[in-house]
């Protein structure tokens, strides 16, 4: 493949280079193959050892750690979110409780007031009833007083009449008769 050795190739140990410039394609110079292959193998082995012993496990662990951190952070965030929603629920509950409490207090106050009003009303009613009963009693008294007075007057009148007529009548008889008449 490589060019046949040139007649002037003495300037170089290889037939591929003549006077510092390449003869033919340097890629096809068989003289250089062992050197390239040897160094290639050395290089690949070194790179493989570096990668498989140091670099790749390290990067893999870093990536795994980052994955773990991210998962943890997401879990923590999830937890915090849960806590926040719990707090929100508690707040809502407290709010609702307060609202019902307020309603209850208001209702209680209303009921109390109602009761007070009722009581006052009842008292007033009772007072009114007592007053009216008293006045009625007085009226009745006055009426009975008047009736008694009428009877007295009738009795007196009857006695006067009887004395005028000069009839001797017992007082008790007169009053009985007056009673009968007044009742009648």
């Amino acid at each position, binding site marked *: *493949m*490589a*060019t046949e050795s040139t007649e002037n190739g003495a300037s170089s140990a290889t037939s591929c280079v003549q006077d510092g410039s390449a003869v*033919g*394609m340097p890629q*096809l110079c068989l003289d250089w193959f062992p050197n390239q292959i040897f160094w290639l193998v050395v290089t690949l082995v070194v790179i493989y050892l570096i990668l498989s012993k140091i670099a790749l496990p390290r990067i893999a662990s870093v990536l795994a750690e980052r994955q773990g951190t991210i998962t943890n952070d997401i879990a923590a965030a999830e937890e915090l979110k849960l806590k926040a929603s719990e707090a929100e629920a508690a707040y809502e509950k407290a709010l609702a409780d307060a609202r019902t409490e307020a309603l209850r207090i208001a209702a209680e106050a209303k009921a109390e007031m109602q009761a007070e009003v009722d009581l006052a009303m009842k008292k007033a009613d009772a007072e009114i009833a007592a007053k009216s009963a008293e006045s009625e009693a007085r009226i009745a008294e006055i009426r009975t007083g008047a009736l008694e007075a009428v009877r007295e007057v009738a009795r007196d009148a009857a006695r006067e009449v009887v004395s005028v007529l000069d009839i001797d009548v017992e007082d008790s008889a007169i009053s009985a008769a007056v009673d009968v008449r007044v009742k009648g």
Partner: protein
Amino acid sequence: MEVEAATLIGDGLKYAGAGLACTGMGGAAVGVGHVVGNYLSGALRNPSAAAGQTATMFIGIAFSEALGIFSFLVALLLMFAV
């Protein structure tokens, strides 16, 4: 004299052959363009499936480009190694 003329003609033919070999690269260009163009039209129709086929596209490009490289290599061999 005749030998010299024959060498000259042979050299000329070598360069002509190298030039002719380079026409093969045009075919590779058409092939690569075809692969990428079809990939693109397919990717625009169904963008969700495009990402999974990028590797396949590169393999196709590599295969069709290799043939162009082969013709280039033949040209180089004609010019420098034969």
